[in-house]
């Protein structure tokens, strides 16, 4: 069973529709038992970083998720804001601390006069590492993005960058660190190629 974390922020039903389409059992929940019994976790997110961290704290999800992800090493996928919340800190509506699993910061996209938010379909620069996250996805495929803040590309060995995207600057579109996966675009809203990425995450 896949558990989609309910912290009152996010298009949880859209994610659930996509997961169910792939044939997986799926629950939207913040209940400790359900999260604990799941095979994998998705941390979705449509919201501001500030509200995101506040709600994770409010529902005691910081402790629950730390236990599942850091201690029990359960597989987790962060989508958009959910991915950003895995980082050290974010600057949306003041500086706020994230879950600090990833030694990265979330900053406003330096878009070089391109309009923000970065909203719509864009291509990825996929790094064909040994990891199967983008198996079956072509460099020509586009993914749906919708964000003003991003995780800047960094060349450190803590994690593996799976894909980057460019919008004024290069930023991380997807990464993996052990059991932790993050993706900036919305796979649940990126048609076949998005569903393929979700499938790869579950099967990996």
């Amino acid at each position, binding site marked *: 069973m896949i558990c989609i974390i309910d912290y*009152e*922020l*996010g*298009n*949880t*039903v*859209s994610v659930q*529709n*996509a997961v169910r*389409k792939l044939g997986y059992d799926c629950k939207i929940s913040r209940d400790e038992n359900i999260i604990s019994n799941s095979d994998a976790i998705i941390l979705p997110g*449509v*919201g*501001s970083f*500030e*509200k995101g961290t506040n709600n994770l704290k409010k529902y005691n999800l910081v402790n629950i998720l730390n236990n599942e992800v850091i201690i029990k090493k359960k597989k987790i996928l962060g989508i958009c*804001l959910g991915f950003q919340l895995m980082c050290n800190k974010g600057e*949306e*509506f003041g500086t706020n601390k994230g879950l600090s699993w990833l030694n990265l910061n979330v900053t406003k996209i330096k878009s070089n006069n*391109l*309009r*923000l*938010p*970065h*909203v*719509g*379909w*864009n*291509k990825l620069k996929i790094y064909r590492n040994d990891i199967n996250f983008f198996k079956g996805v072509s460099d020509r495929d*586009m993914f*749906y*993005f*919708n*964000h*003003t803040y991003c995780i800047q590309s960094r060349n450190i060995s803590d994690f593996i960058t799976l894909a980057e995207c*460019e*919008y004024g600057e290069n930023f991380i579109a997807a990464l993996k660190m052990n059991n932790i996966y993050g993706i900036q675009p*919305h796979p*649940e*809203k*990126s*048609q*076949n190629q*998005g*569903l393929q990425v979700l499938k790869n995450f579950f099967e990996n």
Partner: protein
Amino acid sequence: MLAKRIITTLMLNNGILFRSKKFFPDYRYTLNFIDMWSVDEVILLDITRNLDFESEKKNIFFSEMKKISQNSYIPLTVGGGIRKLNDIEKLLKNGADKIILNTISINNPNFINEAAKEFGSQCIVISVDAKFKNDKFYLMEKYGQNKSNYELIDYIKIIQENNAGEIFLQSVNCDGSLLGYDLDLLEAIKEYINIPLIISCGAGNWSHVKDVLEKDYVSAASLTNIFHFTEKSIKNLKQNLKKTIYIRE
């Protein structure tokens, strides 16, 4: 590079799909005509007059919206009747990815900011309804029927200062005309727009769409009427556009 978007806008009146003409429901059609694979985004507007989110009748809309969200793995932007932050949460919980504000942002522009703080500005689209009359564009309210107290340009500045994510620009004059988008309206506002702009109302053929997407300040073109009558129309449109416009194929 970010692709220009082709958006289908659907209007529901008491749960029934309608086209519109000069902002009045014109006539019905069915969802079967919409190609959910070729289009880049769907905008769904509840145009039922004076419908509160707490009303029993609103559930008809929610059930139609669910049907659409369960069958489309593309972004779904939903509007109509939003008055409270709670209404936005309810929409997101039912399959919306972004939301559209209109009346509430005219009555209280600070609401945009409150919503952006909660859901991020990337989630908040503001519908700006304009009408040309006596040599001037006016910001319209109450379903595009009445002039508001704002000057159009002032309002466009105010919503952006309040952290709006995108503008959904509608021309009451061109709605349902099939004669092309309102190019004069675009000219009048272009230098004041700093966020992504979706232009709506008036498309009648492929070249109308090309005309607006060629402009660097237009991020997306919304289509309603003509493109709902043949099944492959959006696919054909994209075939035609891709020679000159960077789009998702």
